[in-house]
């Protein structure tokens, strides 16, 4: 698999570390019910067969966290953006 890093271009997936679901957002720790919200944030993940947005870390490259749109069945990658420029 090759991932199009927005900085480095198309690079082998071995240069990246995988984290997972990029659609979850760290909850407001001061909001009421924060503990339940954090529980969901930390533990609950969808595992779709098909289109997915995932966080990959280009650890052996530019060290960017990248949001990758990948089809989990075929590894086809529809696009990649820098995480710092994405609002989940």
């Amino acid at each position, binding site marked *: *698999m090759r991932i199009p890093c927005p900085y480095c271009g198309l690079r082998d997936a071995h240069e990246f570390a995988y984290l997972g679901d990029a659609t979850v957002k*760290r909850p407001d*720790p001061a909001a009421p019910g924060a*503990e339940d919200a954090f529980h969901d944030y930390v533990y609950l993940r969808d595992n779709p067969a098909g289109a997915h947005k995932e966080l990959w870390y280009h650890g052996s490259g530019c060290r*960017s966290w990248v949001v990758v749109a990948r089809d989990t069945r075929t590894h*086809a990658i529809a696009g990649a953006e820098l995480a710092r420029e994405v609002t989940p």
Partner: protein
Amino acid sequence: MSRLPSGGRIDRSRPVSFSFDGNSYQGFAGDTLASALLANGVRLMGRSFKYHRPRGVFSAGSEEPNALVELRTGARREPNTRATTVELFDGLSAQSQNRWPSLAFDLLSVNGALSPFLSAGFYYKTFMWPAAFWEKLYEPVIRRAAGLGRAAEENDPDTYEKAHTFCDVLVIGAGAAGLTAALSAARSGARVILADEDFALGGRLLSEQHPIDGAPAASFVAKAEAELASLPNVRIMTRTTVFGVYDSGTYGALERVSDHVAVPASFMPRQRMWKIVAKQAVLAAGAFDRPIVFGGNDRPGVMSAQALRTYAVRYGVAAGNMAVLFANNDYAWSAALDAAEAGVRLAAIIDVRREVAAPLQARAKALGIRLILGGEVVATSGKILSSVIVRSGGREETIAAEVLAISGGTTPNLHLTSHFGSRPTYDESLAAFLPGTPPAGLAVAGAAAGRFALGETLRHGAQLGASAATAAGFAAAPMAAPRAEDTPSGISAFWQVKGTRGLAFVDFQNDVTAKDVALAHREGYRSVELLKRYTTLGMATDQGKNSNMAGLAIMAELTGQGIGATGTTLFRPPYSPVAIGAIAGHHRGKDFRPTRPTPTHQWAEERGAVFVEAGQWLRAQYFPQPGEKDWLESVMREVKATRSSVGLIDVSTFGKIDVQGPDAAAFLDRVYINTFSTLAVGKARYGVMLREDGMVMDDGTTARLAPEHFIMTTTTANAAKVFQHLEFCLQVLWPELDVQLASVSEQWAQISISGPKSRDVLAKVVDAPLDVSNEALPYMGVAQGTVMGGTKARIFRLSFAGELGYEIAVPARHGEALTRALMAAGAPFGITPYGTEALGVMRIEKGHVSGNELNGQTTARDLGLGRMASTKKDFVGRVMAGRAGLIEPDRPILAGFRPVDPSKRLRAGAHFIAIGAEGTLENDEGYMSSTAFSPALGTWIGLGFIKHGPERWGQRVRAYDPVRGEDVEVEVCDPAFVDPKGERLRV
């Protein structure tokens, strides 16, 4: 001898000597082990997996299910190699496997008589008996009875390589379609790789007798090969199996570089694993002949019709004295007739069909071959085939034959097309599965696509080779395909002879019979995936290449569903077995992962250090002195010297992260449980960081070098993980913070000196005006300046060992010089280098937590660090650390432990149980995490987690260790055994 007087693509001027089961034989260059054995009249080559049935060779290719042998001897012994793909070399030594005491007389063939008990699902049914039977009875018996050869018992002396390459068009298979595909693509200028598992190009053209462009097929192959070899944009890879298709046009291939020689040449690998990235690919893997199911169809001498021809035409070998053919299709006739014309004596052709194309019948009659149309083989006899029993017109007759060539039709070799989950579809007219939707960028040409006729195969390859090159961006046109006659192609689907005698095999390699398939049907395992797992049909190393079709056809007949609706199981990589050695490549032994020596490695080696692996690092574990009897004695000396005078250790392996920016302090407040924004410039502070789930991730000290500049240290083990986590926090959680991170772990060497004399030593190496007095550089102070006459340095006054101590950081290249300078300066004080063992003893004496305590399951509260957590701010892990289960009063908390009887040893892993209580899970109160013999106390001491730890100092419990059979009474105490008030740190 069965070698034909002439013919074959072997070099009769180059005889090759080899041995099989200790007997010496001779073949020729160009032979495989299988062809050479047949040439020497050896027809019994192995014993089957389950029933130990005698078996001969069935095929002439990599799909071979029967003729598996052990190759070579000693450290190079390799089990389960297929005799059909082993190139003969001088001195080759092969042994049959799966037999005892000998191949000809195998006592375990009694398994065959037990076949009613070893039927489908026996793995599942039998082993439901008492579990105790497993170790004593089943496993040893089954291991002896059902095996697949012996692996070498010594280390493999050969090397394996990994390599990457790129091309525009990858052509898989160099037969008729592959050659025209490669030529059509290559002539456009595209970079072409042509890969074939065989050692010669040509595929079926090496065995078939049809002329191409009016000349023998061999001359077309020679011309094509010459042209391809002359083109600089073409790479021909023989002995190379493309075994897997992966995403983004990536293909896995195994090149058998030295398998065809006894010992690899100097500096040459045995095998090479290729990762080929291709813009486009053409799969031209051909097709193979499949068996028919009838009683005794596994007897040595029964082989595929295509194999009979290949041995005759390509290798100049008659597989036996007298042959008969049993088939349902025209290709089998062509194959057998080609063999007959090459010199094989063909007695009869038995075909289940009553109508067969007239030209084939005429050709057979011209050769004087008897035709039995509408006939069936119902049984075979002889330990090695001597005759076949044929039924036709309601009568049976026996025909003497040493070879029974069989063919139930042609199966396209579409394995690679389903590696991406695409299901093959059934074609009624061809009685074969055809590729479904192949992976993007892969086109299927020729026989692999069900286009079996030679002329069509040549044209199809040319067409797809050109379109692949076009898709890769080249102006390509199909070559003018050479002309070849399209021979008759009739087939009438036929899978199984009814009313036969003897075991009728569907899967030769796993000994699955037609009865097993029927049993699976009766017991409800009717889907092909269940059929496969219940009977093990198709689960052997040939992955059902020979057996799948008949197995699912029989199931389809039983269910009445039809073959198309029954479907087929999917194929997965690898296409044929790949040795673990090739997958590992050079990543083995010490080269499994990189080794990171510390800046003082060479110095430590000179001092005779014993090293220990810490992740990828090699760290000095201890420095034995002459006369010391064991490691403990060395470690005790190192600890005592440090506590009484001064000791030195390299701590460069700690992670070091440079944190800079206007928001650096605010950022650290969010990732540490305690506060860093209040830290003064020139000071360091111990910090603890959590994962978002509330567990401790790491700890270490972070110093403030300037208002917007911090230097963080992490544990050795977590350096990379913490850095990745911090980048995650900055880029994903809080991109609004203006902070930059840089890992500087490898840029700075860091040497720690500890002990009451450490300041005196340090003072001798620092340059003026750097002042290291207690007033100028107090505990947890940080100073910057130079050492050794001008080397930039940072000095941190802190100590993991719990003594007056300093860590001196210098650019990594000066680390060794600094160490030598400190050793020289410390000589008057008897400065003593120590290793990780002594450091471990001293940190336990001091009650400092380390890897055994930071085990991913402990909170800051568990570690006795709960009060460090700020309540005035949020930080990663704060919310989840407050969960009810993590703050409940009964959760074990860190404490110290010492044995009531001072002579007793403590061990990590023991669990705490109340005195008098039973050692059960319900009575478990916690566990010991670290232990050491303490020179300061003269006894063993330990750190551990126990319910209500801090409130129980002075109480006694048992450290119960049923694994080691130990049960020691211990007293709970302050985890800081030495200097609990920290006075030594501040002197």
